[in-house]
């Protein structure tokens, strides 16, 4: 169930546009923010809000990269695997992340903190190799930098540290 | 009066004997042909019914008689039924003028060993052999099947063509013997058989005779691989058997005629006359089988060319030569 204020908020937002369905991606992002990922319930709620059929929303949710239909961690790390990053050390970064977090691409750490997902070019080729952490970019990465980043996040989320 | 009656009895006895012998011989000729043909082809031939398959003809006869007589729905029924009998009957009738030996004298009566000694026996034979064509042509036509029809047409064309050569080939023989009667012809050969003086005539006669009896290599009317079985494709059971009998009686008739015209008929040393005739007949039949086992079938145009372009001219030339020789020798 969506919290009343979020629902209200979305309803007001939708009321301002002429076609409710044009906001479906924004609604999905907001609901995703609430649940962490798009649960089946979330799909139905988004559908109801936008006046669409659930399967129409599902069509979009399964289409886009940034709508997660499966559970993800608190921090979603998108690792760019397109050609420039690939040329400049994507392999190293990916392997380092996988071994450091002890998961494969597409998986979530058991503590629910990190999810690793490959992504196509994120437009930071000048700072390759680059990753997005919750859509915030981190470029020109080295293993040392990654260590810092992950340690910092882990520090900020003590509850998740086992 | 009694003479009249005894003559009839005698005739009937002769009929019975000749018919029985012919049919028996025909049956065993089939056996012999199958057996010999098999050996020519390194096979065994019939060997299941009796020792050496000797009971095979009887088995065949039983089968033929008991098999269903199928008449095609579209066939011309009466003619279809009649045709085989024409073939068989004409073949059998030809034997009426074939002499088996000198006349016997029993109880003071002179019994000629021929069913009837016609003074135009030769013509009688030609007439019957021409009639045989009707059986083939009618059978082929009445079946209302394209294979049969083609077979019948071929048969008619072939027999008409070779009839001529056959007749011409015998003109020298008649010239030599001076008679149309078969008895006279045989008697004329008491010294030497005509084959010695008329080898060309013999060859033409033999080839034409084979063509007349539709034997390989002249079996185009029934050519199995192109026409099914030709004019008798649609026949089954004993009606088919009649065609079969006709063919094998024909072989015997031709064997006998060859013997009569060229091999001195029943003349021969040591053995009784009719045995000689039999031996000569069988010999000719065996030669025919041997030819069958060796030669492939002619093509239709080859067949016609052989008949018209080779055999007829050759026999004509032979007649002139023979006539000239007779005139010269006197």
């Amino acid at each position, binding site marked *: 169930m969506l919290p009343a204020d979020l629902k209200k908020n979305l309803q007001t937002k939708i009321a301002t546009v002429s076609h409710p369905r044009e906001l479906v991606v924004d609604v999905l992002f907001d609901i995703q923010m609430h649940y962490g*990922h798009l649960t089946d319930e979330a799909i139905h709620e988004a559908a109801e809000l936008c006046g669409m059929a659930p399967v129409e929303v599902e069509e979009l949710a399964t289409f886009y990269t940034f709508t997660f*239909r499966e559970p993800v961690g608190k921090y979603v790390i998108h690792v760019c695997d397109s050609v420039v990053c690939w040329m400049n050390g994507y392999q190293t970064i990916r392997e380092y992340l996988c071994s450091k977090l002890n998961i494969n691409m*597409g998986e979530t750490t058991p503590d629910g903190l990190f999810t690793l997902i490959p992504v196509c070019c994120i437009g930071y080729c000048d700072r390759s190799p680059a990753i997005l952490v919750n859509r915030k970019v981190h470029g020109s990465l080295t293993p040392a930098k990654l260590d810092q980043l992950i340690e910092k996040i882990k520090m900020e989320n003590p509850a998740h540290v086992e | 009066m009694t003479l009249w009656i005894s003559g009839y009895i005698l005739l009937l006895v002769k009929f019975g004997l000749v018919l029985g012998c012919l049919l028996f011989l025909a049956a065993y000729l089939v056996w012999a042909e199958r057996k010999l043909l098999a*050996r*020519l082809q*390194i096979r065994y031939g019939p060997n299941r019914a009796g020792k050496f398959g000797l009971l095979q003809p009887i088995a065949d006869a039983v089968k033929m008689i008991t098999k269903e007589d199928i008449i095609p729905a579209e066939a011309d029924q009466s003619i279809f039924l009649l045709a085989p009998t024409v073939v068989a009957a004409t073949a059998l009738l030809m034997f009426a003028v074939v002499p088996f030996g000198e006349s016997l004298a029993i109880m003071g009566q002179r019994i000629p060993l021929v069913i009837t000694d016609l003074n135009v026996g030769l013509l009688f034979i030609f007439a019957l052999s021409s009639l045989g064509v009707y059986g083939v042509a009618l059978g082929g036509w009445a079946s209302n099947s394209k294979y049969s029809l083609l077979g019948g047409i071929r048969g008619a064309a072939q027999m008409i063509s070779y009839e001529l050569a056959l007749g011409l080939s015998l003109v020298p023989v008649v010239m030599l013997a001076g008679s149309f009667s078969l008895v006279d012809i045989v008697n004329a050969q008491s010294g030497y058989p005509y084959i010695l003086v008329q080898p060309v005539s013999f060859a033409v006669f033999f080839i034409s005779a084979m063509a007349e009896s539709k034997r390989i290599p002249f079996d185009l009317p029934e050519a199995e691989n192109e026409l099914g079985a030709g004019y008798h494709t649609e026949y089954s059971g004993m009606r088919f058997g009649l065609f079969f009998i006709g063919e094998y009686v024909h072989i015997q008739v031709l064997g006998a005629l060859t013997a009569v015209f060229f091999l001195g008929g029943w003349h021969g040393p040591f053995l009784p006359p009719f045995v000689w005739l039999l031996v000569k007949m069988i010999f000719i039949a065996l030669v025919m089988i041997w030819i069958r086992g060796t030669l492939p079938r002619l093509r239709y145009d080859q067949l016609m060319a052989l008949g018209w372009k080779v055999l007829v001219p050759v026999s004509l030339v032979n007649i002139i030569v023979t006539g000239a020789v007779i005139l010269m020798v006197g």
Partner: protein
Amino acid sequence: MTEIQQKNISILTAITAIGQGFATTFKHLFRKPITEQYPEEKRELPARSRARIVLTRDPDGRERCVACYLCSAVCPVSCISMQSAEKPDGRRYAAWFRINFGRCIYCGLCEEACPTSAIQLTPDFENCRRDILTLVYEKEDLQVDHGGKDAAYNFYEYAGVATDEGPKGSHEKESPPVNVRSNMP
């Protein structure tokens, strides 16, 4: 002149050729026949001879026939009939399968059409019966307990349908099932 000579020669050769032919056949008269005496002498037929039809089994001993009707469709004499049905595990099979050997002409088209190698022709050819109804073979009569000529083949390993052979994606040359809701791009 030369032409006539040549013609003479050709007639001569023809006659000798015919003569040779007669000689050959005559010689054959004295050779021992090569015929095999069938019921007394029996010989092993090649494995691919086409005679009695069987229904073979998978390597694991299960029915191969999926009752796809291809053999009955291709049969030129319409001697095969069957009814397909589904097993609880999702396999398609023949609820009944019947071949009328009274009609069968042993052409082998059914075997060629069979996509699962189930129906096969065997060299077993002595199948004459007096009662024509006994020539109608049911599934039980046709089934054998081996894989015949193609012993290793298992159709369900390749077909891609979910059965007890394995779920989707577990068969030969298959990727695991697509997860359409995956977070992976």
